């Protein structure tokens, strides 16, 4: 328990260093654009593939399990939309990104630590924590909500495609359901969640990488710890944010 509190304390000290005044903002802007491409644009493919299949599967499951003359078919479209917006495209996509992006950040920074690249930056007088971590945090907090929007759209499209291709329900009923009782605030809620998750994924994985010690095995272990810790914290914050934002 003491080690947990020590780690949390060290995490906040690192964040204080990360958010101290940057050396030269022009360099940070360039690095933010680079990180957006490396961490965000490169995650579009994975997000799109998973979203289209999940959208299709949710539609199939709903069709199979809501087979009743008392339940309108359009509810399938409604349920798919709500599932994608409220949970899948923020929370589940964040968990997937915690695996992909989180492990990449932890191993990148961890490798920099054990190969003395971070020491080299410190010797140059650079605030290494801010230089390496801040652009990643800004890039993901800005870009990941776009992935959420993309995931919602592609997931809903996946549901429509499966209904059209298999004939399990009329695509027109599906579209009716999509338009039913739509609350724009749900999108806001989902985007806020994703922005918070993006910060958590990036900062937690960067923390584990930044304090990696030893050899390549330790970098691997730091990467694993980053994904596990990131996923657990996402679940805890999901519960808290749902309580705060929806209730």
């Amino acid at each position: 328990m003491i080690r947990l509190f020590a780690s949390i304390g060290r995490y906040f000290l690192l964040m204080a260093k990360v958010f101290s005044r940057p050396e030269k903002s022009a360099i940070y802007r360039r690095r933010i654009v680079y990180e957006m491409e490396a961490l965000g644009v490169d995650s579009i493919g994975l997000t799109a593939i998973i979203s289209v299949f999940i959208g299709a599967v949710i539609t199939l499951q709903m069709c199979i399990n809501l087979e009743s003359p008392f339940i309108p078919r359009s509810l399938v479209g409604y349920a798919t939309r709500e599932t994608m917006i409220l949970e899948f495209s923020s929370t589940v996509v964040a968990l997937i990104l915690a695996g992909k992006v989180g492990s990449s950040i932890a191993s990148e920074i961890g490798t920099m630590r054990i190969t003395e690249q971070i020491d080299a930056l410190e010797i140059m007088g650079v605030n290494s924590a801010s230089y390496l971590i801040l652009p990643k945090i800004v890039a993901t907090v800005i870009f990941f909500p776009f992935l959420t929007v993309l995931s919602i759209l592609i997931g809903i499209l996946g549901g429509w495609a499966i209904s059209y291709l298999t004939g399990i329900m009329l695509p027109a009923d599906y579209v009716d359901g999509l338009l039913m009782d739509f609350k724009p605030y749900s999108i806001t809620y989902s985007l806020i969640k994703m922005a918070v998750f993006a910060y958590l994924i990036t900062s937690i994985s960067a923390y584990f990488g930044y304090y990696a010690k030893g050899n390549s095995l330790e970098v691997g272990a730091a990467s694993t710890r980053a994904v596990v810790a990131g996923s657990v914290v996402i679940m805890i914050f999901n519960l808290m944010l749902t309580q705060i934002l929806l209730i």
Partner: protein
Amino acid sequence: MIRAEHIVKSFDDRTVLNDISVEFETGKTNLIIGKSGSGKTVLLKSLVGLHEIDSGDVWYDDVNFTRLGFRDRKAIRKDIGMIFQGGALLDSSSVEENVKLPLDLFTAQSEAEKLERVNFCLQRVRLENAGHLYPAELSGGMIKRVAIARAIVLNPKYLFCDEPNSGLDPQTSIVIDNLIHEITCEYNITTIINTHDMNSVMEIGEKIIYIHEGHKWWEGTKDDILHADNPELNAFVFASAMAKRAKAAAR
């Protein structure tokens, strides 16, 4: 000039540096030698502030570096160049970007001026055509030379080299040694090199300190070392057959 006074550094219960006092002279290549695990790298990293020392002081000319805060140290660090054992080049940046980084961060020069300085430094280490390459595409010797170019790009007053010859063949080692020595003389830099390469000691060791089990065991020049009456130093220096022959020839 860099002066260490009574430096003590421990990790947990293990004292790695024990009351080390030494002065490194300006315009000279100062060598720290010793067996693996003797505390050379810890001493070097303590001098530059990468390790916080438990007690003692480190002076850069007339400034007590140990007593400075993070921001004040930053001013001195701009005058420090360091070459790490593995080069420590940023993997995601090209050679040109690696060398240019200190200029980007700490100067108000135009892009053309920065590129001119980068090209000058790359020419100085004979890598004028390697600017577009990435660290993964370089040989060990090239990595060390890029690290030297990056270390000198801001015209440092102090140059630290942690085993600059490790992993290099003897010919490339001599090239690196000579390059560091030339730069030291040319720009009147205080250079401190960590090494256990006896070729470096005999080639460029203008001032040598021998570290043994965390203590400063011996201090002298490359001419003194062959005649030193110090069993631990002799055991280290004359471990190789070549060094033994050199000693016999000197006699």
